[in-house]
């Protein structure tokens, strides 16, 4: 009940912020502008339209996740509203979990709005509904949950500017870290190999959740890949939240 109360309050705070709507608006606007871009290019216009549209949704949902995630936890500490919560019979663990779930709900709503509007747009243009959009939704949502958990981790001990930088850097690393997976097989030196393994498993491999290409090209995605990616996401989020709880428990106000 306490986690639920904190989560709903976090959600309320996010949706009462005008920036939230502004980012959703831009997400929808740029996904619509994909129609314009597709008209200017040669090739399968529907594929280009989907590609640009999904990329826009991806970009703006990541921006919402990073900035909402960082601000909401840091603001609690900076504005001392955390005293209000933690002076009640509330475990610090519940505070972090409540914040995470509240942000997850916020992202769920934002993503549902953006993807629903874009799906209707595609449906009106092509006359067909692509059910794989639901898979795209699940994969992108899992990626956003990883970003939220990372932003909560950083904002539990750092300033918003540093947390933003750390989270953005980790997001970018997360989309190139898969190269270490290829790289580690080519290394012979055990120390170098260990280092490559360490780096690969330490940072989130966010490319696991990038199915835009497959969706646009109508490539099939195996159940094994779907399940392993989701299991990886759940494991990574759990690990980051446990570290965040540990840090937050030690924090003094």
């Amino acid at each position, binding site marked *: 009940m306490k986690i639920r*109360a904190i989560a709903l309050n976090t959600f*309320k705070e996010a949706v009462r912020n005008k920036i939230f709507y502004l980012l959703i608006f831009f997400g929808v606007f740029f996904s619509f502008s994909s129609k314009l871009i597709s008209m200017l290019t040669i090739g399968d216009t529907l594929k280009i339209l989907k590609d640009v549209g999904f990329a826009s949704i991806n970009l703006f949902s990541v921006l919402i996740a990073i900035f909402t995630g960082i601000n909401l936890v840091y603001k609690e500490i900076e504005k001392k509203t955390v005293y209000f919560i933690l002076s009640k019979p509330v475990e610090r663990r519940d505070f972090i979990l409540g914040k995470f779930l509240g942000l997850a709900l916020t992202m769920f709503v934002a993503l549902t709005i953006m993807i629903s509007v874009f799906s209707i747009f595609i449906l009106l243009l092509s006359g067909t509904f692509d059910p794989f959009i639901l898979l795209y939704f699940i994969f992108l949502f899992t990626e956003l949950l990883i970003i939220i958990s990372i932003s909560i981790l950083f904002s539990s001990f750092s300033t918003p500017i540093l947390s933003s930088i750390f989270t953005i850097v980790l997001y970018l690393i997360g989309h190139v870290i898969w190269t270490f997976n290829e790289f580690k097989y080519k290394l012979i030196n055990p120390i170098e190999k260990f280092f490559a393994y360490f780096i690969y498993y330490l940072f989130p491999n966010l490319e696991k959740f990038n199915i835009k290409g497959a969706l646009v090209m109508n490539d099939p995605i195996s159940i094994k890949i779907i399940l392993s990616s989701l299991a990886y996401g759940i494991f990574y989020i759990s690990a980051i939240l446990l570290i965040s709880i540990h840090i937050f428990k030690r924090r003094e106000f």
Partner: protein
Amino acid sequence: MNALEIKALSKSFRSNFLYKKTSILKNVDINVNKGSIYGFLGLNGAGKTTTIKCILGLTRPDHGTIRLFGKETGKASDRASIGFLPESPYYYDYLNAKETLALSGKLSSLSNEKIKERTAKIISLVGLDGKEDLLLKKFSKGMLQRVGLAQALINDPDLIILDEPFSGLDPIGRKELRDIILSLKAEGKTIFFSSHILQDMELIVDDIGILMNGKITKEGKLKDLVKKTIKHPVDYSLEDLFLKEIKK
């Protein structure tokens, strides 16, 4: 049984990784009788807020024990019997007073029915009738102080801790707050509060504790302490006692 019993409480902070620790509290002993009003006095930086944060688990003490109604504290659930009003209250300005109280009640594990019942009673007690649906960002400091007191009382706590509750209140607000504190005492509640406004404190406290440089230098019944310290206590005041104590 004491409502609050603090024994040998010590706390130090490291202001920088390289600097040595600064001692804020040094073996602080406090005894607050059940059903009494306890005034916690001290200059700025004496360690009053740090002591309160230790009681609430916002800060971990280096040494010492804190007992609430005879039971040693340490768990979050121990705070179920406490109501806390922080100094310069900070709340969610996108919520209204009613929503703030509902959140406060849920965090204290109250049922929706109980929250509704307590909200109606407390809104009236703190004088927020007709303002309960206004967003907190439209509230003045004095009004926020009332919301702060209301959220501290939502769970019907046995021990009410108020950190500088009179700051930011006009004379009428101070009088009303004194009356509320006295009415809470009449209900059998224990009130522990820190304040710089000695005149207000003098009018309502039973016991006081003076914290100087992290140590309790005086503790006991206000009248007894004044009689012992001031030679001719005909027109004695808490202010005289406090000034004498800080000049030592």
